[in-house]
């Protein structure tokens, strides 16, 4: 079902935890839908010097969170804004169709944290003008039967 990459990031997630006094915090998803991602950023001179996450969710929710933190760590804000869910999926060597929404969530968690940073620091990030993290992010794949 999952690629080795996904299983690796699920079993050995990178950057789990919280950052005290984080510069930006993003939280997307909700418990009702079964996945919440919370992302903490430490930003110095427009560069993401540290990032941590906590995730409530399925294997791919945890794996996408983990790899997303890796993909933006050490990057500038502008670079991080370019992170797409497709890139996350590719970096994980693919996801099953019904799990694509997790990658969308990871992208949104990063953007939410950056938006929070921008708000706190009174910066405008044009890239996020159309960003509404609360919209339904679920894309339905095939449904599998409980056995």
């Amino acid at each position: 079902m999952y690629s080795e990459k996904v299983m690796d990031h699920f079993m050995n997630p990178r950057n789990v935890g919280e950052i005290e006094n984080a510069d930006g915090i993003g939280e997307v998803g909700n418990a009702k839908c079964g996945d919440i991602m919370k992302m903490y950023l430490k930003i110095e001179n427009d560069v993401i010097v540290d990032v941590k996450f906590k995730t409530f969710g399925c294997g791919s929710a945890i794996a996408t969170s983990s790899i997303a933190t890796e993909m933006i760590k050490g990057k500038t804000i502008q670079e991080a804004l370019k992170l797409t869910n497709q890139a996350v999926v590719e970096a994980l060597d693919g996801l099953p169709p019904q799990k694509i929404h997790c990658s969308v969530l990871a992208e949104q968690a990063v953007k939410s944290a950056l938006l929070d940073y921008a708000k706190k620091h009174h910066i405008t990030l044009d890239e996020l003008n159309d960003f509404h993290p609360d919209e339904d992010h679920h894309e339905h794949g095939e449904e599998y039967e409980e056995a």
Partner: protein
Amino acid sequence: MNKRIYLDYSATTPMKQEVLEEMLPYFTERFGNPSSIHSFGREAKQAIDQARSRLAKAIGAKQDEIYFTGGGSEADNWAIKGVAYANRDKGNHIITTKIEHHAVLHTCEYLEKDGFEVTYLDVDEYGMISLEQLRNAITDRTILITLMFANNEIGTIQPIGEIGAIAREKGIYFHTDAVQALGNVKIDVNALNIDLMSMSAHKIYGPKGVGGLYIRKGVKIHSLIHGGAQERRRRAGTENLPGIVGFGKAAELAIENLDGHIRHVKDLRDRLIKGIMDKVDYVRFNGHPENRLPGNAHFAFEFIEGESLLLSLDMLGIAGSSGSACTSGSLDPSHVLMAIGLPHEIAHGSLRLTIGDFTTAEEIDYVINELPKIVDRLRQMSPLYEKVKGGQK
């Protein structure tokens, strides 16, 4: 991964060696078509007759009230559509519950599109229906009550005898999906006033792809699969000879060993439940405390999600199941967990471990040892857990 611990017996069971041995000759040597009149056909026919009589004996039915199908789902579809269409002149109302298997629910939904009306009974927090609500739901248009014997997720066993008595009193056909109950509960279709009953071989250490429908003599029912005159003209298709032979053997074994089986799986189940409840906080135990399948343990661990739990267990070779939405790719957790009133976020953390004849105490102890660590690891990652940690733990 060396050790593999299978705790998903409600999903399917391994076939018993005795069952396989009974089936083997029918693949390559005694392979005739039971409808053929030559010796190959006659020996096939005899084998089917024997299986039918074994199954009949297992549930207290007559031999000619047993019909073999391609599985439990086909049996459910046949019973419900067959009775609905054959009795449409009498009424168009069907009563079922909110916690049926999809083979029943989706069949009822299909019938709703075709002019039937369906009442979906509620269940309480333990998954039990209310006999009073059932009685009140009956109208003079009601032609069928279809109500599962035991639930596949939370294991709750309904008061089938009482339900059967109500149906009989009102002159309404009573179908029960006994796919999970067969081999785990003593069943006598006459004592329980059951008119139709679905069964499936692969849940009782028999082969996949074979099921059975008990149809009481005199029940008006249409066929689902038309064609040849097999199964007393009611279910067409060349019989799954080795499969049926295996089902017969599995049913025989199940009934012979019923008490021993129940004791074995119940002891291990209770050991598992105690072990987990003692070692883990913020966990709920779901389903009815007493009226439940002997091998079924169903938990909901707060703050974590079921699929990640399953995956982590799987990495240790432990096979379980979850009613979390994430295992099915749908948005909502299982309809059963919703029906018993579990909040979404808690339902997401559900784990079903089902125990069978091959389960050992060592396996259970291993799970009792490992599962709390996994729960803890996932909770450490969970943004929901951090909120309660400080205060309570």
